[in-house]
Structure formats: C-alpha cells, structure tokens
C-alpha cells in the first residue's frame, strides 16, 4: 500500500469512534502491539529526548525500502509511534520524503504532534524524514 492509502485507512479506522476515550483506548492498544525494538538498538544515538517522554528510533534499509523500529517509555506516545511506523515503514525514501502528516489532524490527534508538547514525536517524524533524505542521497 502507498503512504496515502495507509493514511486513508487510518482515518477510516479512527472515524468509527464517537468519543476521545475510545480513540485513546484504540491508540493505546496500537501502542501495545508495536513490535519491540531490539534492546541493543536502544542506544543513546537512537534516542530522541523530549522533556516529557523518550523516543528511540532505528532505521534500516531492506532492499529499496526503509524499515523503522521504535519505542517510547510512555504508552500514548507509543500509540502515535505505532501509527507513524505503519505509515512510513517499508516505504521507499522518495515516498517518505514526499509524504506529510496532515492525516493526524483528520484523526483528531494533532495535539500530540505539537512542538510545544515536548514528547519527542515531532523530532521523531523529522528524524524519519532525515533518514529518508540520507538514504536518498547515498542511493544516487
């Protein structure tokens, strides 16, 4: 699936919920299903420090696609990470660079991507894009 298709799918999934509680419960469940990042990859150079929660992000190139794994010490942050991984992992660098995260606002979770929230998520998305740009550059 393309990034756009996955984003549409997520918007549909979240549209089923009437209130924020259900939305959050679903997000928390997504966070719990996030595949664990290998312990040896949770090193300081993979750590994105927010004042409130920590995020670890690892990227690897598998054939022509980037595979992201990530983790956080906070479960709600982890839920958003799970959503971002579903959207951006196993995609080509070109597709990742071209994509945006506007769908988060449509889902109604934009507050978590506020730069003032200091949860490390804004930096994580930025870092995903930077990895993509770096892989793009090395492949050319």
């Amino acid at each position: 699936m393309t990034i756009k298709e996955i984003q549409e799918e997520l918007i549909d999934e979240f549209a089923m919920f009437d209130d924020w509680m259900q939305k959050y419960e679903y997000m928390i469940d997504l966070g719990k299903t996030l595949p664990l990042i290998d312990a040896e990859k949770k090193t300081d150079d993979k750590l994105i420090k927010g004042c409130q929660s920590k995020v670890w992000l690892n990227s690897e190139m598998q054939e022509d696609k980037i595979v992201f794994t990530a983790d956080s010490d906070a479960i709600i942050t982890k839920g958003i990470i799970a959503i971002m991984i579903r959207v951006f992992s196993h995609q080509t660098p070109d597709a990742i660079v071209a994509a945006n995260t506007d769908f988060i606002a449509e889902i109604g979770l934009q507050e978590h991507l506020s730069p003032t929230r200091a949860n490390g998520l804004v930096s994580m998305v930025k870092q995903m894009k930077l990895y993509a740009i770096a892989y793009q550059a090395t492949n050319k």
Partner: protein
Amino acid sequence: MSFDIKKIREDFPILKRKVNNAPLVYLDNAATSQKPQQVIDCIVAYYSNYNANIHRGVHSLSQEATDAYEKARKTLQLHFNAAHSHEILFTAGTTESINLVASGFSELLKTGDEIIVSALEHHSNIVPWQMLCERTGAILKVIPMNEDGTLQMDRYSNLLNDNTKLVFVNHISNALGIINPIKKIIEQAHQVGAAVLIDGAQACSHIKADVQALDVDFYVTSAHKMCGPTGVGMLYIKEAWGKTLPPYQGGGEMIATVTFEKTTYAEMPHKFEAGTPNICGGIAFGAAVDYLNSIGFDAIKKQEEALLSYATEQLLQIDGLKIYGTASEKTSVISFNVSEIHPYDIGTILDKLGIAVRTGQHCTQPIMDFYGIPGTVRASFAFYNTKEEVDALVNAVKRATMMLS
C-alpha cells in the same frame, strides 16, 4: 473573616471556563497561580489611567505611576517585614533574582571558595551557581536528600566550613512540596560567615516569610506564583549586601552621575534596577499581595491543609499509587506515580478530562534521578480549589489507570 470558598472562586474568572468540554479543574498552582479580578483590574487601570515612565518625569502622570510603583515596593517590604523598602528590588522573576546575586558574587569569589546547594533545587537554582563556579573556580557542594524528601541536615553541618561563602536552598521544594528548615540552615551558615539565599518561589503563596526573623541575606520570589502577573519578581537583599554587591546591569535609572570618564552608581534599590522596569507588573504584584492578605495566610493555610490531607488520603486508596515527598512538613503539593505508568500518559488523560496538572521532571532532574523515575504527576492545590475538585482528580486518575494498565 470567615472563609467563603464560593465568594473566593468568584474572584477568579478563569475558573469558570471549560477545557476539552469539561469544567476546568486547575491543579497546577505550583507552576503558576490564577489571577483574581482585583489584580486584572489593577493592570487594566494602570494602562487605562496612568501609564507613564517613572522616576524621571515632572508631569502628573509620571508622578502617579511612580507613587503607585513605590507603594507596591512598600507593600512588599511590609509583607516580608524587610527593615527598609530599598532592600526590596523588583526583578523579572525568581530566575533573574538568582542570576543577579550570582553575577554579583562572581566578583567576590575566588578559587577554593565553596558554595552549597541542596539536592532539592529547581534547575534555576543549580545552573547559575554552576556557571558561577566555572567563572570563579569556586566549588559546588550538595546537601543530599532523604527518601521522604527532607534534607540530610547532619550532612549539611559537615559541609559547612570556613571556605563556605554561600548557601542556596529553596524554602519549599517545587517537585515535592517539602518545607525546608531554613531558619536552622541560615543560622548554621552564618556561624561560618556564609551568606544565604532562599528561593521562596514555591513558598510565598502559602507562607508569609519574615526576612528579619529569618535573618536571611537574600530572599527571592516571583509574582506569578502569588496571584500576580508573570514577568515580575522580587529580590530581598539585606542592606549590607546591597552595598557590597556591584550593579547587575548598566543603563538608565541605576546611575548617579555619568561622564565618559567615570560613572557613579545610584543608591539601592535603583543601583540594581537598570532601565525602565515592568512598571505595571510591579504595581500589580503589590495588588496581588494585598489580595492574598485580604484572604489571610491563616485561612489560606487552613484550606490548603484540608485539601492536602483529603487528597492524600483519597489518592492513596488507588492501587499502586505512590507519593514522593512524604515528610510531614509540606505544602499542598502531591507528586505521585501509579505503578509503572508513565506520568506523561496520566497527565494526557487528565487533560482530556479538564484537569490541569504538571507532569515530568519539574526542572528537578537530580530529584528524579534520586528516585530512579522518569518524572511524576504533580497536583498542586491553591486556596481556591475545592474538595469536589479533589474528587474529580481522584476519579480521573482512576479512569486513567484503568485505560493505561
């Protein structure tokens, strides 16, 4: 005067609003207090009726503004029982007050001198002293803390010696709410000839500090923690230190005479108040102190103690909830975690339910490291909070815990 909570809440317009479709329950008072109409009116009145620059105009408006500003200084002097009004300096806030003192001492300290801070300090009362030590070659020592959030006073006694020049301790810890034995700390420091700065940012909304009874050398606080506006604070500086310390910043207002050969400095307090100050802020600070005194610090204490004991008792009934800072001498602050749940997660759910608390490290990384936790959820109560709001908090924490475990 009887304590009429309903009437008091009427004074605070913000308490009527909703957040995320729920009535606001504001329990982040240790970060900043809400402002009563009396203070808001004072700000509006200043800009509507007598805005002018102070201390230098012969015209009537300037005189009115100057009078109001100096009256506020007098209000603070009386409130903190300073011997002289010129010992009260207006600053931009606690952080600037601390930096002013640190900057002054950078010219007085030499290699080998020692500075003592407590393990309970806010970053703003650690970093300026580390910078001061880097500049002067002085050594920073730390009074360690106990599990219950109190300071190890016997270790403090051992740290003091003839090289100790300064001691810095907060009156009340912002992360845990524990009241430190500052009178004893000051007495012992003075026995070895060291000066003491007390950071009163967390104390002044709860306790009326008497700087003469404490015999403290520097006492600092911010207006915004005391129902006043942001951007203005106070440095109480004992007269002798005011004469010893060099000026902080150069500029207008702080001079006596200026020629290109030599400038002589003005007397206290103007020596330390360069440039046009936060005039409106200073006047509103005075109004805020008047407001708190109209409620009365005994009544404030009684209400807050009732809220603290009720909230502590109710919260502790939640399975897995642990409170940090359990010493008996504490103000209405509860720092807690539930089981292994991250404080950020609890704070996020509470916000969705209209409840404002602080989560994270509270600018006190050393305390969080001591407990080996990423942070805490901190609920801090003011006299305008109610028992019903405590119930709302407890129910919300239960709901969050259910969602997150």
